[in-house]
């Protein structure tokens, strides 16, 4: 250990402000990058899922419409 006390450690031989500024900014930037990368990944999955659900719904509606059209002539015949 290079420092006698915790306050000496924080003081960094008079360069405390510059040392902790560097380490603080670097930690903040890296934490931000990691956080945004992870949230972006879940967002990508959710976006694909919503698009998929929309397509499925659209397909279902088209299918229903087709079926009802096919049924209509039968009803008229009766």
């Amino acid at each position, binding site marked *: 250990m*290079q420092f006698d006390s915790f306050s000496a*450690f924080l003081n*960094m031989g008079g360069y405390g402000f*510059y*040392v902790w500024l560097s380490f603080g900014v670097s930690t903040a930037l890296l934490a931000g*990058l990691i956080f945004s990368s992870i949230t972006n990944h879940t967002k*990508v*999955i959710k976006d*694909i899922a919503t698009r998929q659900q929309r397509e499925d719904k659209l397909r279902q509606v088209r299918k229903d419409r087709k079926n009802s059209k096919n049924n209509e002539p039968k009803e008229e015949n009766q």
Partner: protein
Amino acid sequence: MWKWLHPYANPEVSYHFTGKLLPWLSTLATLFLSIGIIWALAFAPADYQQGDSFRIFYIHVPAASLSMGIYLGMAIAAFTSMVWQFKLADASAAAMAPVGAVFTAIALITGAAWGKPMWGTWWIWDARLTSELILLFLYLGVIALHSAFEDKNLAGKAAGILTLVGVINLPIIKYSVEWWNTLHQGSTVSKLGKPSMSVDMLWPFLFCFLGFALLVGVIICIRFRSEILTRNSIRPWVRTLVSAHLTQEKNNAVR
């Protein structure tokens, strides 16, 4: 000879492979970074001239050399995609650009915080500092081009051209301290032969460097996986993967 590489050209295989790699990489990165940073801050001896301000070195130098290393990796990926039309290479280049930009910013900011007490100024238009700033702008340009086009192939091509043109900046950064005799000091660690640094200062540096390099690997893996998913969103394997993820999320919510 290169046949073992072929399966990794498949996006699905790469997605699952990087997924398996991630926990290992993150564990190693945490281990090396925590040991390295604690060693650097509390146990490494102070410099005889610069005192404790020299501890900034343990972030500044790894960040600066990784900012160049990531650019080199991005350039190789861009070249691969351009010559062999290898689509995954574009995805990896797009994953690397933001990581490289953040590391360049860290190198510049820690450099400024080190320059103020040692040189008496936050910034000077020194050759090394200016070329590193240009590297940051190159990264920002590449990121902008990747997100400027809806068509990811076109985006990859445009960003790739900028990346390859920008490679000229790498030797300029590397040799700027030798070509122009300005304020920034010459290299200490990456000298050919013996580094001009005492061993008890060098070891924590090696731990920090390896830790940061592993962290770069972790973040690139995460971003690469997102890029693969966006580029393959209509493939059946992505559809099954996404629906599996959704049902799992629903189950978790019910519990």
